[in-house]
């Protein structure tokens, strides 16, 4: 199936030169006189590499044969993570190297979006917000705020490293935005 480049929106999955991409940005370029163009930023689904392509407005691009399905992480075993479909109880073993950077958000019993391209897993994405335990962070030092330092590094139970306010300590649970690795609130 194809779609007019003018109708592309962020988040859509398209296929270019037989590789799957997510649309991350669309901009119309219209000179006063003449043809309009659509500049599209695309992120490769597997390598995460971002490329930019310009299309003539009205040109068509292939929609990628991409499916997203929700699966619950059961456990991690060796170099793979084992997920289960809550409805069918089907299990799926996904190699950790495919999960790549998102390994830092893997927690048992959490439901992830599993992205399949032509039936093959290419990526998983964690929930936008997760509640996670701080496993390691230096205690806040009095006077730090006076010097303007209001954040400190912390390590979470899943391995992710985030900046947290100095008044939050190890052993507490926080809500974190997985898109930006940013602290949101105490959970």
């Amino acid at each position, binding site marked *: 199936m194809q779609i007019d480049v003018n109708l592309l929106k962020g988040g859509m999955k398209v296929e270019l030169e037989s590789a799957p991409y997510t649309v991350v940005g669309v*901009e119309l*370029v*219209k*000179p006063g*006189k003449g*043809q*309009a163009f659509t500049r599209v930023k695309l992120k490769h689904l597997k390598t995460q590499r971002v490329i930019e392509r310009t299309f*003539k*407005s009205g040109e068509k691009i292939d929609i990628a044969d991409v499916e997203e399905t929700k699966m619950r992480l059961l456990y991690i075993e060796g170099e793979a993570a084992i997920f289960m479909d809550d409805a069918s109880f089907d299990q799926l073993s996904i190699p950790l190297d495919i999960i790549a950077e998102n390994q830092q958000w893997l927690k048992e019993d959490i439901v992830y979006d599993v992205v399949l391209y032509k039936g093959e897993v290419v990526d998983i994405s964690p929930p936008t917000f997760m509640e996670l335990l701080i496993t390691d962070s230096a205690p806040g030092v009095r006077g730090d705020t006076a010097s303007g330092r209001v954040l400190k590094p912390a390590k979470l139970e899943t391995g992710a490293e985030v900046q947290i306010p100095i008044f939050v300590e190890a052993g507490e649970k926080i809500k974190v935005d997985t898109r930006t690795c940013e602290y949101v609130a105490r959970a």
Partner: protein
Amino acid sequence: MLAKVRTFFLTRGIIEADPFLLSPYAPVIDVHIDPMQVTDGHESYYLHTSPEFGLKRLIARTGLDLYYLGHVFRSKELSRRHCPEFTMVEWYKNNTTEEDFFEEVREFLSLFIPKLPFAIYDYEELYTPWSQEFSIVKKDHPTWDSSTIKDYIFSEKIQPHLGKNEISIVTNFLEEEAALAKVENGKARRYEFFYQGLELGNGYHELTDTVTHIERMELNNQKRSAMGKSVLPIDPLFIKDLATYPLSEKAYGIAIGFDRLLMLYKKRTSLQEILPLPWPAPRTL
């Protein structure tokens, strides 16, 4: 700023005109401009993409110098620098010279941006430094025709460099890009004004010959048809008025995007930052 614009024209004896926004005929027949259509359930109208036909008919009938300050509509144009409904300042001088007309445009632009010198460029010569780019683009986009490649090189390579510490005027376009401008010695006397890589306005030494008008409109309709676009109805009222009351051979006119000038005046980079209300997300049919 709207008041400043009106004062500018008032002091120059250019009178505000308020033509119809709706017409049963196309407000322009251009390959790359798509007018919006509205219907009341029985009849269908086009919203004007610029007040050009209405203003020219009024000028032809009255001989006055006229301006329009108001909204125009263009389909499928939405970006940081485009809005499907935007404010246009358009005016005509029925009896002037190129030099005097440019000077008036410069005075007008200085309401919003610094008063800078003009530099005039020949459209074709601007491509000279980019002659090798044609084959590069062709390789990446084998289906693009040469006019598409030219537009691409213009918007990606040439335009960003125009209007640095000057107002750049691009002129001497190819005959097929003349739109509603006179053609002299095979060069279209059309003027595009650029500042800081942004197109501000488009002016013409106005075409007066109605036979040529009809030929160009029909040619553009053929091109539209070949591109799979709708064929637009030629406005017989415009043709009739211009044939009956000819425009002066020394008529010049220009259309300038008010919102873009306001954006530059406020030192912003997107129209969304200066529009009185944010443009709503479209609802698809």
